[in-house]
């Protein structure tokens, strides 16, 4: 059933709204994947898939490049290991030299465990913050949540969205393209200016 659902309550609010995105619903990951491929081949750039879990092959279907997160982790890891080393060298070797067990005040081998732990600590905190930064999260408002059916994305529904600011976006042509993918429903969502 590709019957089109009338746009939700936002359509009624005519004052100062503009098109935000098209939303197409699918009930299977395969159909969603093919819709993404069609959008990619049609030259769309600013579109997305919304799925309950990461669908295998979707990155390729959307023509996405690799995640840059690893570089953030690397930078944080290097910071962690250097900060740990500097801290211990300065505290035990320079600022207050402690001679314990006849060992030299500054001794690298005994510092390795803490250098390792701090590498892990900095890298992991950096990874999580970096992931949220790349995803522009937390974000507590998005026009996509105006859709009533969108809540299904976290259950068992699969969505494709095309943002209105995509250069190829057109109310008629995009709709035709999405319709050709035989979705369970298409919605045009608005946002307030």
């Amino acid at each position, binding site marked *: 059933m590709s019957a089109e659902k009338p746009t939700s309550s936002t359509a009624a609010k005519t004052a100062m709204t503009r098109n935000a995105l098209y939303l197409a619903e699918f009930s299977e990951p395969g159909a969603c994947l093919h819709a993404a491929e069609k959008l990619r081949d049609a030259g769309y750039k600013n579109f997305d898939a919304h799925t309950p*879990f990461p669908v295998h092959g979707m990155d390729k279907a959307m023509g996405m490049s690799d995640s840059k997160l690893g570089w953030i982790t690397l930078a944080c890891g290097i910071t962690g290991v250097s900060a740990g080393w500097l801290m211990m060298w300065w505290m035990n070797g320079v600022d207050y030299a402690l001679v314990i067990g006849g060992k030299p005040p500054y001794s690298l081998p005994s510092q390795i465990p803490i250098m390792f732990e701090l590498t892990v600590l900095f890298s992991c*905190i950096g990874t999580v913050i970096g992931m949220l930064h790349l995803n522009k999260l937390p974000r507590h408002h998005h026009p996509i949540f105006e859709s009533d059916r969108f809540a299904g994305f976290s259950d068992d529904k699969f969505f494709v969205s095309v943002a209105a600011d995509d250069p190829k976006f057109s109310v008629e042509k995009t709709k035709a393209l999405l319709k050709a993918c035989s979705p369970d429903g298409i919605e045009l969502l608005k946002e307030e200016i």
Partner: protein
Amino acid sequence: MGYIVPIKELGESPLVDPKITMHEVTDLVSKVSENRAPRGWWFAFLFAASFTGILGIAVGILFWFGVGVWGNNSPTYWAWDITNFVWWIGIGHAGTLISAVLFLFRQKWRTAINRFAEAMTIFAVMCAGMYPGLHVGRAWYAYYMFPIPNQMSLWPNFKSPLMWDIFAVSTYFTVSLLFWYVGLIPDFATLRDRAKTAIRRKVYAFFALGWLGSNRHWQNYERAYLILAAFSTPLVLSVHSVVSFDFATSVIPGWHTTIFPPYFVAGAVFSGFAMVMTLMLITRAVYGVKSVVTMKHLELMNKIMLTTGSLVGYAYGMEFFIAWYSGNDYEMFTFTNRATGPYWWAYWTMISCNVITPQIFWFKKMRTSIPVMFVASILINIGMWFERFVIIVTSLHRDFIPSSWGYFRPTIIDVFTYMGTLGFFFTAFLLFIRWIPMIAIAEVKATLPSADPHFGHAHAGDGEHHHEDKPSEAAPDAALVPGE
């Protein structure tokens, strides 16, 4: 319109009940926190919470009177405090093993139990983390453990393994919490989208961070998960290695051995799996999640317990062998004293619980029997507590000069503190089961046959993504084909 069966490994059977749909997975897990708590939950919660109150009393008495309220004496300076610390931190390790190590090895069966095990890790590390703070006696000076500028212009001694331990355990707690939270984000979104009341929606929306399942987000998310798993794996090995350095770098016979790091890590995983098993069997029975946590999962966990239990048994034997082989009189005395001295009962409890008990899992009948595995998991928890007790107390109580020998007896405050941390652990765990999805919903869905984009209908005119399997080949896997 032929059906296409996903590629499977040889001999692989479905991880979860093949007839279960995605919506049923969502429903099954979310309902636990949406429905009213069963009466049993309230009984368990009040019982556990009252023990948490006992912890408060025990800690209050400790702070008021000092560590003299414990049974620790000269020469047994470390006793239940460090025994419990090592026991709790060891229990935590199974959670990280399940969430990180099995993730890296692509063991998809972990998805049914990882959330559960990670929660256990976090609460166990909280319990463990209390002891270093408590056993310093004057807990208001606990901040001396951290490199914070203080009024004596002193810095911590970074050459001390106890200092390494502070960094290892606090890193471990932070990273476990991050890993757990990252895994929870999509599931919080599920609860947010299902929420019926405004307050419930607002609270879950806060924790879901505005998650909208975007594939552009999933890409970074999955990469973050992979990186966290890749860091957690060496981290978990390092944490218990560092815990073992607390002992191994000293010159006490019975502690000063190079086998300690791997031996401690194996023991940690062993005890942790036993604790996951105990908790999982109870939860599985109470909440009826048997179609997601199947007998296959339980059997695999029993196999891991058999492996790690045998590794621990090997380590016990090797310690004795090296004590004899080294020709060191003190070392040999310590080990003979362990098995035949005043604490012989603790040693043999340890051997029978840790070495003999898991051997029953060689038999499939035992591996797949719920009463057997429940009793075995409890015995292993007890045995692993005794292992730490034996290592710590028997090595200390008879040191180099017989005139300083002593005998450690726990006081009621020791018992209260230990029972109290158990109460705290179960209180936290029950709250977790009540409010947080206890099974990783998104991850379990991804392992369902219907999650494969190649599964289901073959779309006409698109050969790029489909294998040319004939439907007849699907016959052996008929159970996986929807509609049958």
